[in-house]
């Protein structure tokens, strides 16, 4: 045990008492923002060791996926990182498209980019404003929430749901974006920069906030890589790894944007990296929206690839055309054989590299599907990140890591 901090407690000789306190942080605790437990060994307010218990909301997605047709797996992916479910949905669709060899039209790619970047903003928005709440500043959280609401309204215009979106199909979207969706998107683009600016004004140079976050929960680039960190947490430690740039998907190579990196990997750097990423996301959305508007004629109405085996035909065709009826039946009943193959596809999720490892043996559902869940992998560093730090800092570290129980437990 760390004797430096335990000297002030003096127990009589032969005492069976211990000099440290055991504290259960979670499974349901306002500071955990999700269902997971930390058994902390405390010396006063300092953490001697932390042991994590996870799995409280394990739902056996990998097993369930082994019996489902591809389109029924999309709702499972919603429930991984539920702060940015559209990214998960599209990651899954991209995986299927890679396996099946479906080529998506450019317009679909750009629309997907818009949605994925909106999802990233809403994810970072929650994470950063909750870091604010945990450090005692509630107003930022309340203030930005109405713009997450606006993002959810955009989702609603596109797919009808808000949190667990089940958005899109293999090959594209279930329907074209409505005029209302674009209107809301324009409103978001117009109003959000001022809000983000004000949010940054509240925090970035706030003395109290800086004192609370600088130098706490830090990790070196080397350790972060060894721990399998990805996403903003890795970039805050100074490694410019971003799946969008390293293995571009959905035409990310058509956009120009920066990868913000930090230096110390502490809570403050993670916060700044996420804020900066929101600016980059805004710029990507702007570029993508401009590209979407450039499509003319029939191209301007394209919203899915030509993949009849997997893309549900329009309802009026199902009622009037034989072929569409056959496809509809085969898709809904899950009677489409998936070609055998083995594929790994990853996307830059809200909190890191979200990977799908998909093995098909030629059956109607995956033989094996494994999700590489970023926060499951980096949460194991938590005990190293908090060792020797104050309890109140550990709470901030937890929220600035952007841990989502749904993703961790699959």
């Amino acid at each position, binding site marked *: 045990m760390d004797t430096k901090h335990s000297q002030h407690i003096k127990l009589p000789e032969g005492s069976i008492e211990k000099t440290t306190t055991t504290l259960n942080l979670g499974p349901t605790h306002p500071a955990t923002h999700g269902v997971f437990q930390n058994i902390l060994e405390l010396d006063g307010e300092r953490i001697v060791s932390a042991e994590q218990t996870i*799995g409280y909301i394990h739902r056996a997605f990998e097993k369930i996926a082994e019996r489902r047709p591809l389109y029924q797996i999309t709702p499972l992916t919603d429930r991984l990182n539920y702060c940015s479910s559209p990214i998960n949905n599209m990651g899954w669709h991209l995986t299927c498209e890679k396996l099946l060899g479906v080529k998506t039209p450019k317009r679909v790619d750009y629309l997907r980019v818009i949605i994925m970047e909106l999802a990233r903003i809403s994810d970072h928005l929650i994470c950063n404003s909750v870091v604010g709440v945990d450090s005692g500043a509630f107003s930022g959280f309340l203030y930005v929430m109405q713009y997450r609401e606006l993002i959810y309204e955009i989702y609603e215009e596109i797919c009808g749901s808000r949190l667990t979106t089940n958005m899109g199909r293999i090959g594209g979207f279930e329907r074209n974006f409505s005029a209302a969706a674009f209107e809301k998107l324009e409103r978001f683009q117009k109003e959000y920069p001022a809000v983000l600016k004000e949010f940054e004004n509240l925090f970035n140079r706030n003395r109290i906030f800086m004192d609370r976050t600088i130098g706490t929960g830090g990790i070196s680039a080397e350790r972060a890589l060894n721990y399998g960190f990805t996403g903003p947490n890795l970039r805050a430690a100074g490694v410019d790894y971003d799946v969008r740039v390293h293995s571009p998907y959905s035409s990310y190579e058509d956009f120009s944007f920066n990868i913000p990196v930090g230096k110390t990997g502490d809570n403050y750097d993670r916060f700044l990296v996420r804020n900066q990423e929101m600016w980059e996301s805004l710029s990507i959305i702007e570029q993508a929206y401009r590209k979407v508007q450039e499509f003319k004629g029939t191209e301007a109405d394209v919203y899915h690839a030509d993949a009849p085996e997997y893309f549900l035909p329009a309802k009026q065709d199902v009622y009037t055309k034989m072929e569409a009826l056959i496809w509809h039946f085969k898709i809904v009943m899950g009677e489409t054989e998936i070609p055998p193959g083995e594929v790994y596809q990853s996307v830059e999720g809200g909190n890191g590299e979200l990977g799908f490892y998909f093995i098909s043996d030629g059956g109607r559902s995956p033989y094996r599907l*494994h999700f590489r869940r970023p926060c499951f992998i980096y949460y194991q560093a938590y005990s190293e990140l908090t060792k020797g730090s104050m309890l109140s800092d550990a709470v901030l570290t937890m929220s600035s890591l952007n841990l989502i129980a749904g993703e961790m437990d699959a």
Partner: protein
Amino acid sequence: MALTNETIKVRLEKQFEGQLSRMDEPYGMLTFEAPKELNLKIMQFLYDDEELRFQFLTDLTAVHYPSQPGRELAVVYHLHNLVDNVRIRFKVFADIKQPDIFTATRLYAAANWMERETFDFFGVNFVGHPNLKRILNVDEMDYFPLRKEYPLEDQTRTDKDDEMFGRG
């Protein structure tokens, strides 16, 4: 010069003469199989080699193939060279009766929980792991649920009377 699959293949084959099999490139990712005793040697070689530099463990999981007697469990490693941006995948196979595989935790701290998860769901025994216990399932569980002999519930079963779930 960018690192190509061809170069990796040549380097690996030179280092592990004739021991690697089924080299393939599904969807562009170099994939091969290795004897299970070699898993650490291969990872260490890929890590240390100045040209290869596979120093990031992206993913570690297992697959169950009940139809392959003596090599039912495959442990799959995905490694990433972040400098040249190349990914590779390799597999080692183990007998389900004695699924002992050397742990990668000495090389990658990230492997700790990934191996615990793989143990939890497939029963792969990672030799030398510092804390090999269940992670997502309850500690009392006495089987490994992602193995193929445990099917999901029959969807057409009628003996259940639970109107709450729409089956009544």
